[in-house]
């Protein structure tokens, strides 16, 4: 194979100082046409020298953990090492981590290190196969630390110093937890889970987590009602705004139900939708009204924001938010909770929290996609697919597809309403992550966005370009349908970084908007980019 790069070895994680890897555009996986020409991609930037005083630039120069957590003296270093080991002990104990103990210990014990997983990882491949992004790299570090300091097994060749911890903390945020690597593992070893568990160790024991996930994420959500900072009053204003938006776009006056006791469905959207893509929750209001569904939104704290960032880094926060969601539903006396187009929220409340909710907290929960499929296929809406007469491709959100098995509903809808629908390759449960998974889409501090769009999202961008290869002509509008708020956030940054909307007329959005756009009685297109074209 003749690797011309110096191979970064496992023990290098503990190297005293210096940046382990420096990425350059020429090393990254090449993009397909029309992005294969030099100058099409913005250059890479250097981390600012002052950052390294408080933040960890010693991994690859990018900063995901944007709280100043670097120890300032030997004393602080010693304490951090001690607390890290304390956290590692808790991570592998029943009472502190029963939630993932069995999967974690299995993953630590049985990896054969065959490296079959590496080629399945979009980050590893997109980076030009940089060793530090190999799915097994961070896993093997944690495994050796565990074997050496906790299990006291022989043969664990690793040194634990302050740099090991600093780099490992950052490295836990170089994996989107898409778990594509697990699908190819002959032993079912879960490297994504190990990244998740390292994040938990840092958050639950050391209080170290990116601000957008913790301080301005779950903590803010539990206090103010939403990680967007939106309080109940602002939410009610938002509902009014959506009613006006619906009137403006469709000429229909719809009263969006809020806090209606005894409705069949409590619909919870990711609150980011209201701020960034209000046309998506508005589309659901239009569709549910038309289909005669009994539903309501909630204006209670946490009840109007489906997000649960705890699922990415902290089990306690995960449990707290899941319980709040269920409490809101119980108060409203609804029959079920339906989660809007948001991947992680779907997985968090429907799948992962399923074994936290017991007794009276066991309220039925489902994704909105099967319901939307049933409405569309039931012909309750008067739809004209020719209104969507432009190329559409579907992005599969990992949390909905690979991790919850909801694969066909979104496709059945698209086949009905989008005549030029085409799949990306690969798709379905073997899809590639958008690059914004596990919280990345909302992590924008310092230079992290650059790493996301250039490395984590690179494979997705390649897939999008390949899906639209025959229609790349800028005169043809193209739509990447992503039924997930965080995926949309990532696509927004990605398309902006590469100027793909401006140069090649590639747009993105959710699924419900596309359904409403096909409604016969709408005079104007529902999708804004179609209006601009005319």
């Amino acid at each position, binding site marked *: 194979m003749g690797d011309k790069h110096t191979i970064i070895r496992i023990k290098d994680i503990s190297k005293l100082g210096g940046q382990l890897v420096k990425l350059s555009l020429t090393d990254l996986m090449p993009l397909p046409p029309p992005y294969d020409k030099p100058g099409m991609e913005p250059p890479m930037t250097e981390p600012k020298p002052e950052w390294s005083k408080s933040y960890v630039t010693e991994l690859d120069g990018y900063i995901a953990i944007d709280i100043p957590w670097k120890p300032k003296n030997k004393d602080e270093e010693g304490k951090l090492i001690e607390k890290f080991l304390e956290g590692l002990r808790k991570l592998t104990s029943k009472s502190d981590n029963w939630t993932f103990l069995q999967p974690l210990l299995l993953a630590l014990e049985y990896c054969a290190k065959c490296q079959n997983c590496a080629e399945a990882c979009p980050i590893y491949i997109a980076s030009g196969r940089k060793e530090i992004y190999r799915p097994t790299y961070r896993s093997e570090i944690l495994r050796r630390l565990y074997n050496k300091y906790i299990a006291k097994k022989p043969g664990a060749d690793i040194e634990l110093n302050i740099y090991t911890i600093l780099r490992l903390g950052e490295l836990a945020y170089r994996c989107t937890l898409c778990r594509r690597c697990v699908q190819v593992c*002959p032993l079912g070893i879960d490297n994504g889970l190990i990244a998740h568990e390292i994040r938990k160790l840092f958050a639950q024991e050391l209080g170290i987590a990116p601000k957008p996930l913790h301080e301005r994420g779950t903590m803010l959500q539990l206090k103010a009602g939403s990680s967007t900072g939106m309080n109940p009053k602002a939410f009610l204003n938002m509902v009014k705004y959506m009613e006006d938006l619906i009137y403006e776009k469709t000429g229909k006056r719809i009263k969006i139900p809020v806090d209606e006791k005894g409705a069949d469905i409590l619909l919870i959207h990711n609150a980011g939708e209201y701020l960034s893509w209000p046309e998506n929750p508005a589309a659901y209001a239009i569709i549910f009204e038309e289909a005669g569904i009994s539903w309501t939104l909630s204006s209670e704290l946490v009840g109007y924001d489906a997000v649960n960032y705890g699922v990415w880094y902290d089990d306690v926060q995960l449990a707290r938010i899941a319980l709040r969601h269920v409490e809101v539903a119980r108060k409203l006396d609804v029959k079920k909770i339906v989660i809007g187009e948001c991947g992680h929220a779907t997985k968090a409340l429907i799948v992962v929290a399923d074994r936290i909710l017991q*007794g009276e907290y*066991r309220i039925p929960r489902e994704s909105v996609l099967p319901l939307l499929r*049933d409405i569309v296929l039931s012909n309750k809406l008067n739809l004209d697919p020719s209104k969507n007469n432009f190329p559409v491709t579907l992005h599969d959100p990992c949390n909905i597809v690979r991790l919850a098995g909801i694969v066909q509903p979104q496709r059945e809808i698209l086949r009905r309403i989008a005549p030029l629908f085409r799949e990306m390759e690969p798709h379905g449960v073997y899809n590639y992550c958008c690059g914004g998974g596990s919280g990345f889409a909302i992590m924008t501090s310092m230079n992290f966005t650059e790493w996301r769009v250039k490395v984590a999202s690179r494979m997705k961008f390649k897939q999008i370009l390949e899906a639209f290869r025959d229609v790349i002509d800028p005169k043809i509008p193209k739509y990447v349908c992503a039924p997930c708020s965080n995926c949309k956030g990532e696509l927004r940054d990605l398309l902006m970084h590469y100027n793909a909307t401006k140069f090649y007329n590639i747009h993105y959005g959710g699924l419900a908007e596309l359904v409403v756009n096909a409604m016969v009685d709408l005079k104007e297109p529902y999708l804004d980019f179609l209006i601009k074209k005319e």
Partner: protein
Amino acid sequence: MIYALVFKYTSYISFIIFVIGIAYKWWKWSSMPLHLRWELYPVPHEVLKAEYGGSYLEEVNWWLKGRLVSVFGELKEMFKEMLFIVRIYRSNKRLWLLSYSFHLGIYLILIWFILIFLGAITTTYIGIPIPSMNPWAIFVYYVTIIIGIVGDVLAIVGGLGLLVRRLVSPVLRDYTTIPDYFNLILVLLALMSGLLAWFFDPSFNLAREFMSSLINPLLPPPYLNVITIVHLAIVQIIIAYIPFSKITHFIGKYFTYHKVLWDDEPNMGQLDGKIQELLKLKLFWSDPHIKSGDTWINNASG
């Protein structure tokens, strides 16, 4: 004769350690607490949906529809993986060739053990000598030879290939620890000493005689030559060592797939008791946002 007698008894000891060790390992993994759901699709027991990776969550009001689980689907996937190692085949043909040769060889050796055992029963308890003109005896005699030799050679070729691959690739070398090498080398030593022992016992009559002495405590063991003694010693060490090593990945693999990746069982009330117990556990995480020393349920609701 003394040596042979010693090895007769150490065979029992290593076998007992193996059985107890494996049972302990199984118990260790199966008695772990219920974990949060963390399934990964495709899940092969999803009726009609496994093919494309779908789940019961694709249905509106899925909790009212009853959940169909296909044991056959799981078994099919399990055997496909066990017998052909399809996950490596699909993504890395070169690695598959080595790994498959190694594992297939080991499976054949396990079958060889069964054949030796059956042969011993045939001669000791049924009274049909092997070799003889009895059709069953002819069958056992020849199949044992073929399966044993083919299995051993395949396992040696694959095992050596895997070892060389680890030594040659700088990445694999970096990831491979001393216990990893130790396991592989120990298995290879057993396989290669087995091949040498076969040169002195080409039709496995000695092996069958030794097995006969094991299944009938009154029967004295046959005379064992030096190479057979060395081989037996290594095999006994391995058998006793397996439960304490990563060679038990066949157990690990059962749990990773059946109890984690394919475990999509929703809580319809049947898990309430277990969950309540777990929520009563105290957690001691130190960051101030967690009430350290309090229970999970109090932490979640407060």
